[in-house]
Structure formats: C-alpha cells, structure tokens
C-alpha cells in the first residue's frame, strides 16, 4: 500500500511540475489581465493563480484525461468572480492599474473579454462557466470591445480647457 502511494505521489509531482512550467506563464498573463494589474506588480493575480493551481493539484488524480488547463482556467475564473463580488462596493477596493489595457472595464467585462478573446473559449462555454445566459455574454462582450477600442477619455480638466479655448 505504502510504496504504491509513494510512487503515485512522485508521478503526480512530476506531472504537475511540468504542467506549471508549461502553462504558468500564459495563466499568469490571463490572471493579470483579469485583475487589471501592472505586469511587474500583480500580487492579486499571483494569489488567484496560486489558489487555482493548488485546487488543480488537489484534483489531479481525478482528472481522468481531462485537460488540466481547462480546470485551472475554470478555477481562475470562478475565484476571480467570487473575489470581485466580495470586493464589490468596498471602500478599500484596489483601483485598476492605468497601464493595463483593460483598466476601464468592469470586472465582469474583463472576465468575458479575456475568456472569449484571449483564451478563445466559445460563447456557450463562457456562459456556462459564468452562469449567465449566452445573450448576456454576447452583450457584455460587445460592450467591452467597444470600450477597449474607443479612444481613452481625456481627464475632465483637459476637456474643460479645450472648451474654454474654443469659446
């Protein structure tokens, strides 16, 4: 009993290490896009990814041929959605980093855009993952695309200065 356990543990450790080495970079990029943090200062994204990877490690033996990447992505999305919900409306909410391309989006818009466009998850799967109807996912996606592609808003002061100069 004991040796079989040990060999299974060793196998799992080896497989998991190879998996993290291969997919870690892309997953961390996804997490950083979700949290809209700067690439070199992303404590929230690292924490999210560590938890998602730990949950993947814990269910490694039960994957039975499923893609572990899908599983980690699912944990990442659900962890982020839960975190965003808990943080909702709190005074101590971290502001998105202005350097992130998704800084002007809401957490849900970021989630949908990143899953659909960066991760290439199909619309129905995204809907199932987030527990939303597919039409809603499409609407959020289009709104997010419009916001990202629109030119950045100028600060209120600059707009006022332009108007003052015109008159």
């Amino acid at each position: 009993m004991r040796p079989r356990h040990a060999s299974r543990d060793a196998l799992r450790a080896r497989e998991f290490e190879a998996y993290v080495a291969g997919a870690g970079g892309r997953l961390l990029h996804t997490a950083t896009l979700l949290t809209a943090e700067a690439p070199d200062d992303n404590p929230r994204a690292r924490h999210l990814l560590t938890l998602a990877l730990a949950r993947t490690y814990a269910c490694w033996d039960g994957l039975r041929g499923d893609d572990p990447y899908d599983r980690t992505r699912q944990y990442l999305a659900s962890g982020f959605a839960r975190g965003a919900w808990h943080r909702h409306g709190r005074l101590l909410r971290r502001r998105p980093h202005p350097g992130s391309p998704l800084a002007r989006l809401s957490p849900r818009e970021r989630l949908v855009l990143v899953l659909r466009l960066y991760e290439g998850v199909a619309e129905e799967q995204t809907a199932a993952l987030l527990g939303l109807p597919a039409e809603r996912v499409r609407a959020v996606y289009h709104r997010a695309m419009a916001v990202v592609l629109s030119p950045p808003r100028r600060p209120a002061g600059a707009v006022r200065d332009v108007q003052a100069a015109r008159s």
Partner: protein
Amino acid sequence: MARMNREATVRRLLAQSPPPVPPELHAEAVRRGTRMLRRRELARRTMWLLLLVAAVVFVVWALTVRAWVEPPPGTAPPLTGR
C-alpha cells in the same frame, strides 16, 4: 471583416507585455494543494469514524433494549384471596 480586424486589434493589445512568472509559484501551489488534500482526507476519515461510532452505539442500544421482545403483561391477575 471589420469585426475580424477589431478582434485582432484587441487580441494584440491583450497579448503585449506578459508578466514574469515568479519562481515560487509551483512550490506554493503544491504546498497549498497538499494541504487541501490532507484536509479532505481528514474530513473523509472523520466522517467514516462518526458513521462507525453511530452504528456501534445503535447496535448496543438495540441489544440492551430488545424492542422486538414482547413486553411482559403489566397487570397481575386479580387476587381472589381466601
């Protein structure tokens, strides 16, 4: 066509400046994952133990009470004394 272009633009925007992977990511994930597994194992063992204890208690109680044995008649026959 325009939609493809828009998607390609945003995809490019998302793909730039990937963050560096911290070296302790794997070790930390394994540490937390192992802790989760251990907790899950502990919870399962506790549940089985509780179930076993409940079964033993029930068997002992049933054997002492012997609810299936007909109780002795509660009233004695009337005494017709001489």
